[in-house]
Every structure is written in C-alpha cells, then in structure tokens.
C-alpha cells in the first residue's frame, strides 16, 4: 500500500463504484423486462475485477465467465457501451449481438463472457499459447468461478499452462456459490490453492474483498508470466450479494449471511476507509465521487434506451471473416 498514490486510489474506488451502481441499476431494469435474456449481477465482487484489471496492461487478454459485467467495466469499457449491449443495441460493445452474457471485443483482448462453466480458463490458455508462440510481451487472464473449479477442462488447461510455462493467470472469482451450491460442500480437499499447487505452479488463496491485495498478487503473477516463469493460480474469495441470476428467489443461504458480508466485508466500504485514512479524500469528496458515478450510470441508461437496434441488413457481419460472401 506504501506505493499507492492518490490518483490511482481514487481511480480504483471510482471503478468499483461504477460497477456497483451499474449492476444495481441494470438489475432493476432487468426485472422490468428491459434486458433481453436476463443477466448475472456481480455486486459484491468489484474488488476482484478492479484489482485484477488495474494490474494488467490494456492489450493483455482476458476471457471471462457468464458473470462478466464487472470484468468488462474494469477493463475500461464505458458504462454506456456495456449498458447498450445489455439492451442489445447497435452501440453496444458486441454491437448488440451478445447481450449481457457475451460482452466481447476480441481485437482489444477481451475474449468474452460465455455460457459454459469453466470455459474462461481454456480460452485464456489458448490465448496464452498464441502469445508465447508469437513471442508477444503480454499475458492472458482466465477468469473462472468456484463452480468451474470442478470441471475437467479447467484442470487440463492449468496442467498444459504449467508444463508449457504459458503466460497465464488463472483468477478464481470465487463468490462461493455455484448457482445454489456452496463451494465448501463440493470441494474435495477443501483448499483450491493446494489442489492447484499439485500441478506445479504457484497458487494462492487471497482476500477478494481487498482491491489492493488482488492488485498486488496479480502484479506479481504478471511479472512472473512476462519473465517466462509460467502461470499463477489465484483464488480470490469474494461474495455475491444478489442471486445467481436476476429474479432468483435465493432460498439456499440466509439473509443474515448476506448482511454479514455486506456490512463487514464490502469491498467499496473497506477501500473507502483506506482512501480516507490515507488522506486521499474526505468523506464529502467520496460522496461527490458517488454522485458523479450516479450521473454517469443514468446517462448510460439514457444512451442505451435511445440507441438504435442493429440493422437487419448487418446480420451477417461477424458471422464469418467477410471472405465467404455469406448473404441473406
């Protein structure tokens, strides 16, 4: 924390606030039928996204999960372009083709969210293999949830990354529930870092509610990857405040458990405390920051609502390379 400067601190705080406000706003719009296909709310998991994305370079690759709004916003995409994608509008990050679950911009290293449990690590491992083959000075991050920790493909990918020393970070965005299943009930051995270390790579269990801790571990892992020393496994313990999907009734955990995480482990509250105690901002300035975020999200909703639907005539764009002559 000693090398944390004011502008970085305020940027980290603001990004987490943007994600929280975005998600809570989008959740309400989804219940009103404005978001085709539903969405997965990442409120509570802001520090994992912001800590990770703030520690990697703009052209590093990420591949994520079904819950990817926070990763996408933290990668630097505007609330406008992400909200417009949720509304499947032409101005969205995926040009209205993807919606909430398929936010992607492959030309800029965002290899997308997807609907397959544990797929993010495999996709990122492939990207890391390509990076190594070409000899680029960049890395790939594969996000995976705790549910994806019990899929074969995830561990096949980790094994290959280990033996080939690929520039990969496996980042477990561990919100503790695979839909309705508590991670503690389904983790043989009980310790994910210990399981990963059996594949011969450095593996850590860290506090995913502490943005600086996430940032520190990812910074070190990236340096290792760039130095040719191979992949790192980081299991960031976090918590989601809402259901697996919007509108879920959520009878598999208690309201008391949710309240406990919200009141004692909230990543934004915790980091606000750091910002104020370090003298980077007063409470009044933090409140102003929150108000500016509120305005930004309101503008994002207005932008999404007023944006055009994709043109029917453009429906074949992105289906192929453009060289096959696919026509309606």
């Amino acid at each position: 924390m000693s090398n944390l400067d004011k502008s970085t601190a305020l940027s980290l705080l603001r990004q987490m606030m943007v994600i929280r406000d975005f998600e809570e706003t989008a959740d309400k719009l989804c219940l009103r039928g404005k978001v085709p296909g539903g969405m997965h709310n990442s409120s509570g998991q802001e520090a994992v996204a912001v800590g990770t994305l703030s520690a990697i370079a703009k052209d590093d690759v990420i591949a994520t999960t079904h819950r990817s709004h926070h990763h996408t916003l933290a990668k630097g995409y505007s609330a406008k372009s992400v909200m417009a994608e949720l509304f499947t509008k032409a101005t969205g990050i995926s040009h209205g083709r993807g919606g909430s679950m398929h936010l992607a911009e492959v030309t800029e290293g965002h290899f997308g969210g997807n609907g397959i449990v544990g797929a993010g690590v495999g996709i990122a491992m492939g990207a890391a293999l390509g990076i190594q083959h070409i000899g680029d000075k960049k890395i790939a991050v594969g996000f995976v949830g705790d549910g994806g920790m019990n899929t074969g493909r995830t561990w096949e990918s980790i094994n290959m990354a280990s033996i080939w020393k690929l520039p990969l970070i496996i980042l477990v965005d561990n919100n503790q529930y695979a839909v309705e299943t508590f991670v503690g009930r389904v983790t043989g051995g009980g310790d994910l870092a210990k399981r990963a270390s059996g594949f011969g790579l450095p593996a850590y269990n860290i506090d995913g509610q502490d943005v600086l801790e996430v940032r520190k571990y990812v910074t070190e892992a990236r340096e290792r990857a760039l130095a040719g020393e191979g992949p790192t496994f980081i299991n960031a313990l976090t918590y989601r405040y809402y259901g697996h999907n919007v509108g879920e009734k959520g009878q598999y955990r208690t309201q008391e458990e949710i309240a406990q995480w919200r009141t004692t482990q909230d990543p934004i509250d915790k980091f606000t405390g750091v910002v104020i105690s370090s003298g980077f901002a007063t409470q009044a300035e933090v409140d102003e920051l929150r108000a500016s975020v509120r305005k930004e999200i309101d503008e994002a909703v207005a932008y999404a609502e007023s944006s055009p639907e994709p043109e029917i005539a453009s429906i074949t764009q992105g289906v192929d390379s453009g060289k096959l002559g696919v026509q309606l």
Partner: protein
Amino acid sequence: MEEIFVPALGMAMDNAMLLEWLKQPGDTVNAGDVVAVIETDKTTLDLPAETSGVLGKHRYAANEEVPAGNTIAVVLAPGEVE
C-alpha cells in the same frame, strides 16, 4: 412511493396472470407483506411490499393478464398521493 410490479423472469416471459389480491386499496401494508399473487407460465409467485405504507389503487383486477414489467399498485408513504 414503491411500485409493486410483475417482474420479468426467465428468457421469454411476456405476461403473468394476476391470481389474487391479498391487500385492498387503502389497507396498511408492512414491509414483507404479500400484496398479490401472480402466476407465470412456470410458477406462482408472491409479490411482497418492500416498504411499509398504505396501498394505492389496484391497477389490474384479479384474473387479468399483466404484461411483465408493469406496475400493479403502489405503496404510499405518509403524505404521498398516487
């Protein structure tokens, strides 16, 4: 003023049937009280109030179809009018 509305659930939910009103206009409601019961193509669902106050008008009748996302009633805080 809290709007009680039919939530859009699932991939392609268009309408719900308003099965029953459990609170009448002018009734006092407490946060958590079920105000109405609806039926979607998959399930029946209780719609609770999240705040306490007085229930406003019924905007739909029992056994009427309600488009997903539409408000069926509001809960008025002291001093508020519909």
